[in-house]
């Protein structure tokens, strides 16, 4: 049976531009805030409008008391629209949806690898790790330093940039490999562009317990449409990213969408 989810009319509390073209929007969404776990997502739509027509999926970036935050890069119709909402404006959230990351425990070290809007997972994973007493390290990659979001109160964030303008000069998977240096005792969580996930699966997932949060096009987010298949590495059947994921054990899936 699916996790309980809510169709909630939420209202905007505030929106901030946290890096070039990247925004965090905080909304009042009590039911979702109280039930979400790290790695789950919400489908966002706009009442009284059919443009955009389909709801958009966003990972929950943080949840605290009554509020939920989203972090997104304003690239298209949906994200540009959210970024322009004023405090008090409504949206409809459907969530929390999907299966999040496995529960964290104090026994293990968690290595979280993110790129682009995958950085949305930093605050919620950090909050979860702290509440569970787990030790967590972040590896956060971007093309250039101005795209990196700084998160207040989050420690252990290792930056990587393609142009070397901040942190490690190179990609974030290289950075992770350098840091763990063959130690396969930890757990890797990752969220970001598909090429990054493919590299992790190939270069890290074989030796370290690795979980990937995948992004596929989604029309519904709740198992209605069969629009979000992810190939099962075993029998070649499909999982649904929205119901069976979006987080998968890296050994369970095979990427077939051209990255």
């Amino acid at each position, binding site marked *: 049976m*699916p996790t*309980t*989810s809510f*169709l909630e009319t939420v209202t905007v509390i505030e929106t901030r531009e946290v890096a070039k073209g990247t925004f965090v929007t905080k909304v009042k969404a009590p039911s979702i805030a109280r039930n979400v776990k790290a790695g789950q997502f919400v*489908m966002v*739509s706009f009442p009284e409008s*059919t*443009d*955009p*027509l*389909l*709801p958009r999926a966003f990972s929950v970036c943080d949840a605290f008391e009554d509020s939920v935050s989203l972090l997104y890069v304003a690239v298209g119709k949906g994200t540009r629209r959210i970024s322009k909402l004023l405090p008090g404006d409504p949206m*409809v959230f*459907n969530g929390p949806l999907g299966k999040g990351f496995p529960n964290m425990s104090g026994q293990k070290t968690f290595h979280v690898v993110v790129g682009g809007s995958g950085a949305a997972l930093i605050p919620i994973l950090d909050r979860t790790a702290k509440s569970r007493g787990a030790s967590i390290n972040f590896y956060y990659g971007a093309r250039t330093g101005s795209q990196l979001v700084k998160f207040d109160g989050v420690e252990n964030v290792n930056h990587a940039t393609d142009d070397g303008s901040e942190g490690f000069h190179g990609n974030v998977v290289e950075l992770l490999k350098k840091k763990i240096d063959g130690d396969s005792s930890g757990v890797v969580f990752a969220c970001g562009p598909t090429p990054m996930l493919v590299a992790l699966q190939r270069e890290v997932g074989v030796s370290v317990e690795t979980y990937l949060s995948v992004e*596929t*096009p*989604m*029309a*519904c*987010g*709740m*198992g*209605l*449409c*069969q*629009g*979000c*298949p*992810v190939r099962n590495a075993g029998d*070649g*059947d*499909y999982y649904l990213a929205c119901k069976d994921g979006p987080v998968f054990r890296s050994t369970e899936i095979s990427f*077939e*969408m*051209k990255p």
Partner: protein
Amino acid sequence: MKPELSVKLGKVELKNPLMTASGTCGYGEELSGYFDVGMIGAIVTKSLTLKPKIGNEPPRVAEVSSGMLNSIGLANIGVRRFIEEKLPLLEKLNALVIANIAAKRAEDYAELAELLAGKESVRAVELNLSCPNVKEGGMEFGTDVKALSTIVKMVRKVFGRTIIVKLTPNVTRISDFARAAEAEGADAVTVANTYVGMAIDIYTRRPKLHTVRGGLSGPAIRPLTMAKVFEVSKSVQIPVVASGGVFAWQDVVEYIIAGATAVEIGTVLFAKPDAPVEMVKGISEYLADSHFGSIAELRGSLDVNLQNVPHMNRG
């Protein structure tokens, strides 16, 4: 007095004219967290095939202006697992169940219907004819009047309850197909499935769907399907189920005025899974405000002089 919302498709009575559209509501239970699926006229299942199907490679969905393209490829768990696993859930939820079926051979439609005939809680079957006819080189069944007639005839022999034939809109004159379905004893026709469409990412120069072409649904197609519902309702005596682009209760009313008996809602569920609730309310209030006692009075009430309707007087 509350207006009468119930409608009949063959012998089955729906408590209101709203149905889910096949493929947009999973197997029904997925919606049950959002509203009481017993309150909607009918739940129409994802197309069921004899064997489970994993469906097409991704990407399978893409958004376009006021619509979406899909090429799911009939991904489904197969009719037997449906009967074992999903039907009991739907029964428990008091849903009125209509099973949508699809196949690549005429005989397979009959076999599917026969399997479902054994289950009393499957109150009707809806035949999805938008599938490639493997014998005839992959032409859609629904674009060949003879193939359609054969399938309906075969299913009629094995299935005594309501048979609804879901027509494809991708033909020159859809009413020819509706008449053929009626002639073979279908109890209703659904007008219509999705329209063949395509979209390209201009930067990668790749199609947005793996299968290149897919089916267009959503508000973009509503005026097209509206014209077809009107045409078909003037051509056959059996009820017409409208399917295409409904996003608000006003759209349901518009289809009923055009001649529909019941109305399926599909793509809207992705953004508003509880849409049926406010739609039933809206229709009910509209009927009361407009002094209609029932859906039947509203049906086909378009104020129109048929002499104003040239075969195709446009441009």
